[in-house]
């Protein structure tokens, strides 16, 4: 496999422990194991959908790849270069090629800057264009995302959520990066606007030849945009494979539960049948021993409570981290 991005053994822990003083003052802090050993690959020009519930570590994973959070351990190979080993100046150069689009269109734009300044900023930082050339590039980018030069001198609060997301996309794409982390880019938007942004991201991908890591909690959106899907639970990937295979024949009980929790338009009121998950996501400060999903899994056995399953190839393009599906596949 010649993936554009290859992640191996990526770990991000937030260590807030305070030693002796903390123990005395009764605030010992905590070690949050947000990302706990993730291996993933994304082929050039492909979209990998990363799905999971809040607190599973999916956003942290996206930020650790870009070193917005310094990874605790592991490797991120981008086009053959280990991003985690870059020094400050090489990392700055690398930032031209890897970008991010954020969830919250209200928090992601500096309220004191005009749209023109916001979109031009990456070009200024990397001294890629100046003067009228810069303005042309900015206007060109705004046009591509469905805005126009009349918007240059306006402030973010004068735009709707969908338009602000377009500004964020223009800012991320103006340097023509190769790889973009889309961190819940449509979750904060209205339904009719979500579709506009999904379509825009797809157009941009075709035009600029982008590769996406698309993070979302919405499995329908993930199913729509992704070539492959990775399902994350409590800091680990529990299932990964081509979109169609994973959605049609989920191997991990968590994936199954996620899929059956999604309300469907086709089923109208009446008796509902679904695998209901009990309880909440356990805390990443104190994850359960064995399989991380065993506390909520309807099929958990003694084995699941004792040993943690590794991500293993199951069938076709699918891998899953489950003792039981493993048994099924082999039996």
């Amino acid at each position, binding site marked *: 496999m010649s993936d554009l991005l290859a992640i191996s053994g990526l770990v991000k822990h937030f260590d807030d422990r305070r030693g002796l003083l903390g123990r005395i003052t009764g605030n010992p802090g905590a070690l949050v194991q947000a990302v706990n050993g993730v291996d993933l690959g994304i082929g050039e020009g492909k979209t990998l959908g990363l799905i999971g519930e809040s607190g599973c570590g999916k956003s942290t994973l996206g930020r650790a790849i870009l070193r917005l959070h310094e990874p605790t351990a592991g490797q991120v190979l981008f086009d053959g270069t280990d991003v985690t080993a870059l020094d400050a100046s090489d990392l700055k150069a690398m930032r031209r090629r890897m970008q*991010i689009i954020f969830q919250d269109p209200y928090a992601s734009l500096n309220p004191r800057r005009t749209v023109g300044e916001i979109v031009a900023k990456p070009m200024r*930082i990397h001294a890629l264009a100046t003067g009228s050339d810069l303005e042309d590039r900015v206007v060109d980018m705004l046009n591509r995302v469905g805005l126009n030069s009349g918007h240059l001198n306006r402030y973010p609060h004068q735009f709707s959520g969908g338009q602000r997301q377009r500004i964020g996309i223009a800012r991320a794409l103006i340097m023509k990066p190769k790889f973009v982390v889309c961190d819940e880019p449509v979750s904060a938007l209205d339904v009719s606007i979500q579709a506009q942004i999904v379509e825009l991201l797809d157009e941009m991908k075709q035009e600029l030849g982008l590769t996406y890591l698309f993070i979302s909690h919405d499995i329908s959106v993930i199913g729509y945009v992704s070539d492959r899907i990775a399902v994350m639970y409590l800091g680990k990937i529990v299932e990964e494979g081509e979109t169609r295979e994973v959605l049609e024949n989920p191997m991990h009980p968590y994936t199954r539960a996620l899929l059956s929790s999604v309300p469907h338009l086709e089923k109208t009121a009446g008796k509902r049948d679904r695998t209901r998950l009990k309880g909440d996501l356990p805390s990443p400060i104190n994850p359960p021993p064995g399989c991380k999903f065993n506390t909520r899994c309807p099929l958990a056995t003694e084995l699941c409570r004792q040993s943690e399953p590794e991500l293993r190839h199951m069938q076709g393009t699918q891998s899953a981290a489950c003792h039981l599906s493993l048994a099924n596949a082999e039996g």
Partner: protein
Amino acid sequence: MTTVTHWTGDAGTAKSETLFQRNMKLFASNRLSIFFLFITLGFVFMAVAAPLIAPHDPSDADLFRRLLPPAWMEGGDWSFPLGCDALGRDILSRIIYGSRVSIFIGATVILVATTIGVLAGLAAGYLRGWVDIVISRLVDILLGFPYLIFAIALIAMTGPGLQNIVLALAYKEWVIPCRVVRGETLATSGVEYVEAARAMGASRSDIMLREILPNILSPVLVVSTVRMAHVIILEASLSFLGLGVQPPMASWGSMVADGRSFMLQEWWLSTFPGLAILLLVLSINVVSQGLRDAFDPRFHD
């Protein structure tokens, strides 16, 4: 009981104005603040134009006029409306010139302290790590020092004089904006537009000065105005103790002090400069309150 949420409408504003302009408009609609803003500006004008508007030379002593009462009292003279002090100097002129000391020291101390405090607070809040530890511990230590006593000790060592007074007041004053800025910076540096700037490869100083700073100026503005009133009082206190600007320069604090022994009979010596301090400090505080109401979103409905 669940907290009841009230709907007050959230119409998107499409007007072409920045948040700052919007807040300033809100401030301008507060009549009380505007009234006191004009009084404050009046004092500033008085300080700047003192030689033009003062009827007499503030140090022009004449023992024939010693303890001359205000004009409306028996024996008063309309060319010395507020009367004269123990050396026969015109009190009104001395008050007008005294405003120069109060406003100059208040403004300079706040300017110096705010500059230091903002930079230190930004560094502590954004860079974290040892920078934060050093700055925060220094702030804690300075906060433990009693303000006035330390200022007195400092002036006792260096001797009085405008420059030394400014230093004696600013040495600790920067701590206040520093703490405000550090807190705001900590909160702002987690916001996504700051992350976006990091993702672009922006340098730390670029992020601190261009992304974070413009967004935390409002609380700094509010705090600076409140503290300016405070510094003016401190300066008056130092002058009252004889550690402020030296004679024959007029300052309100020393005028109050000079009039102390005449309080029972010749009350006007201390009362008028005292009223000047009161009015200026009150005006600045009301303006500051107005700014806070306009800028703090928690007061917006």
